[in-house]
């Protein structure tokens, strides 16, 4: 005896509640800290996209006469670096690479890590053990060490840097994904779905994903700042971006010795890394609060 449909065949019109995500956006909008953080990130992204039009000077043009000018020099509002290049322009152009190196690995790791973690969490048993213990091997390495080792093995360059950072972030995301999925799997509504005869894929799609991706996403956005700093660190060590590309971490490296001559100018790339990291973190925190539904 199959499940029969209704005699009417037509649903009646209903009042709809605003969906879950609408509620999240609404709560986020009311959070001043998160909104400021979001504004800062938007400005940085816009600066990165429109760098050629916004930057006052050519970031690559060097001049040995104009080396290490201080902040406030006419024509070079934020001074010049050790090769006489305009700091402001380099910082603006640097946003491109730095944001790229910060966001992309996390983005990639989010998809790969979630896939691994959700599969392990839902299937449980031996599959879970094999997947998660493998992940744990990578997770046992401190992330900086792992990033350096992978970069060293792969060689310097932007693409290799992105690859090694992605690999670094897959284990923590997979762990979170597995843990959240395991928890959700035990909740009654998933059991009820299993009792309805739905296939595993359907259950994951309808019941698990919606409840699991949110927390994973929040965790991942918190990792962006780490990725940014790690990328800067790799560039600092000469393993990521190569000169003369403007990238904040690399700039910190090359300006190292200028700390005694023009400390404020030398610190500027660090300030940018700081502002960007903290904005992503605050936005991530705000997201987490907004997603906490118990209305």
């Amino acid at each position, binding site marked *: 005896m199959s499940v029969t449909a209704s005699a009417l065949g037509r649903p009646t019109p209903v009042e709809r509640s605003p969906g879950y995500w609408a509620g999240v956006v609404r709560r986020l909008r009311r959070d001043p800290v998160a909104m400021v953080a979001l504004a800062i990130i938007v400005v940085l992204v816009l600066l990165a996209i429109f760098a050629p039009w916004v930057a006052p000077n050519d970031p690559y043009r060097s001049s040995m006469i104009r080396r290490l000018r201080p902040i406030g020099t006419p024509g070079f509002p934020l001074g010049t670096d050790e090769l006489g290049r305009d700091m402001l322009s380099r910082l603006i152009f640097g946003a491109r690479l730095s944001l790229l190196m910060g966001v992309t690995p996390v983005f990639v790791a989010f998809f790969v890590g979630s896939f691994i973690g959700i599969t392990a969490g839902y299937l449980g048993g031996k599959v879970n053990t094999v997947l998660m213990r493998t992940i744990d091997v990578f997770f046992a390495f401190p992330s900086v060490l792992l990033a350096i080792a992978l970069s060293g093995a792969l060689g310097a360059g932007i693409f290799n840097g992105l690859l090694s950072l992605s690999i670094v972030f897959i284990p923590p995301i997979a762990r979170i994904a597995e843990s959240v999925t395991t928890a959700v799997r035990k909740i*009654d509504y998933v059991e009820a779905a299993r009792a*309805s005869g739905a296939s595993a894929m359907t259950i994951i799609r309808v019941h698990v994903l919606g409840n699991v991706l949110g927390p994973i996403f929040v965790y991942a956005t918190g990792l962006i700042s780490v990725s940014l700093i790690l990328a800067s660190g790799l560039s600092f060590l000469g393993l990521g971006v190569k000169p003369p590309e403007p990238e904040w971490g690399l700039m910190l490296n090359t300006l190292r010795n200028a700390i005694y001559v023009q400390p404020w100018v030398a610190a500027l790339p660090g300030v940018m890394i700081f502002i960007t990291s903290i904005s992503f973190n605050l936005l991530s925190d705000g997201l987490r609060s907004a997603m906490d539904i118990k209305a």
Partner: protein
Amino acid sequence: MTPAPLLEIAGLTRHFKLKGGLFGRSAGVVRAVDGISFEVDEGETLGIVGESGCGKSTTARLIVDLIAADSGTIRLGGRTLGVDLELRELRRQVQMVFQDSYASLNPRLTVEEAIAFGPTVNGVSVREATALAHELLVKVGLEPKRFAGRYPHELSGGQRQRVNIARALAFRPKVVILDEAVSALDKSVEAQVLNLLSDLKRELGLTYIFISHDLNVVRYMADRVMVMYLGEVAEIGPVESIYARPTHPYTQALLSAMPSMDPDQLTREAPLAGDPPNPINPPPGCRFHTRCRYATELCGKTTPSLFALAAPRHLAACHRAIPGSGHPDAPRRLETAA
């Protein structure tokens, strides 16, 4: 001739191994459900009562295979699971409503989506399934216009439980297992939901398995009652017979543990001491003998099987009731007519 029972459970068993120690060595076995057998007739309500660790919730999950049974047979309408009855078919015909109304509903799905999910999985179009969902909402007393587009957190506990009932009914099941379905509700809401359940049972010709720790509710709702203790059936019989003439000492203790409603007849002494024990490594022989005031040496050695008492369809697993068992309180074995 009485018709065959709708649901027949025989020898249902489920043990959980406890892992402990360095290499996950077995640290003991939880004998959650140990070879229980019972039947449910079409159109009746079987109540299952018992305290923590008795295995009633595990039994419910074993019946719909949310937990795999170690052994035992499940027969529905004369067909045996695994032989001529597919699991998918069983799951359609036997549905379950859980205790926690909030955890039973996906917070991301609207009410109508939650109810329509089951039918869509079984091949019904989304449109038709949604129409069915609206119909069922009316049946459970929730106006579709107001409720179908809402999310679980916007509803009260009683309303959520109605949604859960509608969700179970979307499969047009024959049997609905209510696992402490009203236990978490306020008393006034509970009464409303019980009325609804009675109405639905009558209207749709349902059969209920009603699991509860509240003996008053079970007395009101059930036709027959099964009392479980530590994974086994202690006593089973028609509800009035069980409540009027409880035979197993555990049933007697359960009934007398109910708080009194009469200020002139307050309880003087607790019928049992201590907590309900853990089903890990249960006592040998009769599992209740360690707390039973009538226990003798026999009770610790031999497990009594369910014995049919004088009252119709009333069985108890107690040596005191089995003639010739060797227990001092047992009736003398009737000599067969020469």
